[in-house]
């Protein structure tokens, strides 16, 4: 390194320090203003990664969040932190031969999981493809809008988080804000996410979505039954994704998309239970996983029911 650039660097450094000192009075005002921040807000800001918290700390956080959301949206909120149950590995199957592309799942998911209406966030993308071309992403259309579906000569492939056993989004996260829980659900701690969007770049399914703006949900449409790692209200600047409706499935219920599907194309269950619907499909139907060659090992299977 030559001496000039060295001295320049030094200058820059001292400059930035000077800048900092210049701003000190502002800082002092800010510090004084801290008194205006509630204890909860300060605590929330310095909250550690959810995975590392003790039971007591989680309870406290959940209680504070419930209070905060209830006040904000004007109705009673529950924020659950139900953990994974041993002996359960969630799996999903979607019948490509039956899906008609009506997009009911897309909007049921939006409502259940409190996705922003504007800017619009959809966790499920339904791809329309031509039967004669097969699964051909280059020619797939997500914006199809005919009078009636299904359209002649086409089939439909809804894509959402594939809940990989080998999730690339988790590997690349620099802050460990996303991880695969013991029941196989890949979750995000929205408080720990810094919004770098590495996970979005890493996900080969386009399943992760970024809140470019402050999420916007009408108060009367908000779903107040939430899970900390799932559908609780998010903020601008964090990434979100399908969690198999963690707030529902950890309480024993089917995900919202399964319940709404008018053709019964969507199946869900415990991969470790040999008597489950999902295991029957894996053992008896023609099954494929999306982009198998990438070795992401999804727990989301596509199958042909006929």
């Amino acid at each position, binding site marked *: 390194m030559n001496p000039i650039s060295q001295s320049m660097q030094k200058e820059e450094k001292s400059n930035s320090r000077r800048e900092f000192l210049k701003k000190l009075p502002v800082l002092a005002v800010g510090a004084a203003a801290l008194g205006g921040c509630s204890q909860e807000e300060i605590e929330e800001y310095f909250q550690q990664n959810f995975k590392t918290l003790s039971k007591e700390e989680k309870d406290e956080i959940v209680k504070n969040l419930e209070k905060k959301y209830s006040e904000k949206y004007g109705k009673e909120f529950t924020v659950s932190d139900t953990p994974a149950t041993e002996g359960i590995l969630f799996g999903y199957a979607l019948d490509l031969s039956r899906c008609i592309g009506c997009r*009911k799942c897309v909007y049921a998911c939006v409502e259940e999981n409190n996705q922003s209406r504007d800017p619009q966030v959809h966790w499920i993308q339904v791809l329309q493809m031509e039967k004669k071309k097969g699964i051909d992403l280059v020619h797939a259309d997500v914006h199809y809008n005919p009078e009636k579906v299904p359209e002649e000569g086409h089939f439909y492939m809804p894509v959402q988080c594939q809940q990989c056993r080998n999730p690339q989004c988790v590997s690349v996260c620099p802050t460990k804000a996303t991880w695969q829980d013991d029941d196989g659900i890949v979750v995000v701690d929205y408080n720990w996410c*810094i919004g770098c969007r590495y996970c979005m770049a890493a996900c080969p399914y386009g399943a992760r979505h970024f809140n470019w703006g402050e999420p916007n949900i009408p108060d009367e449409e908000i779903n107040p039954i939430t899970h900390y790692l799932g559908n609780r209200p998010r903020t601008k600047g964090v990434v979100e994704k399908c969690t198999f409706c963690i707030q529902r499935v950890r309480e024993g219920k089917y995900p919202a998309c399964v319940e709404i599907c008018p053709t019964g194309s969507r199946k869900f269950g415990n991969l470790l239970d040999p008597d489950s619907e999902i295991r029957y499909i894996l053992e008896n139907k023609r099954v494929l996983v999306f982009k198998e060659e990438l070795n992401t090992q999804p727990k989301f299977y596509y199958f042909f029911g006929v």
Partner: protein
Amino acid sequence: MNINFRSEKSRKSGITLFIWNFKIILFSCIFLFFNSCSRDNSIMEGNEENRTLPEIMRSDVINQGDNLYAVKAPPFSEDIFPCSGCHADEEPNPNRRQLVDMHDDIDAIFSHDRENRWCLDCHSIDTRDSLKLASGKLIGFDESYKLCGQCHGDKLRDWKVGVHGKRTGEWNGKKQYLLCVHCHNPHSPKFKAIKPLPPPVQQKDIQL
């Protein structure tokens, strides 16, 4: 902000770390102050009930066993059941023909192997309020799946294990299942095309 906080923290050490942390915490606090404290926290009035998904076939449970709940068979068209209400006074006509005076609406849509089948293949000619299996055995309308299963055995098999058709409720517990005729019109079983919900917004649709 957050990026600084975490990455700097790992790089610096000792007193430098302390000073840096102090600076960053101050910045953070100011950031926090302007961002969150100024947020509108007004409590909205309203006592709406907890909203859940549209649960179209939730109630009306008739059957119980092994955590499996059948949903009540779908209602008949108005004033059509019991069939014997009209047919008791009619002379049965076993000849295959096109229906004109009554049930012409069904005849118009009938597309369930129309070429080879007609009313009395499934409806009993003697016991009008029953369905008839190929064996001649009579069954009630609430057991119609047995009738369907005579030809569609693979569907019946999948339906019994919850793979054909829709189940709602608990993935590991109580579930409701639907009969074939909840979703398929027995006289015209192919699914009808429906209007899709709106596509996702495209960049060109966004008004700035």
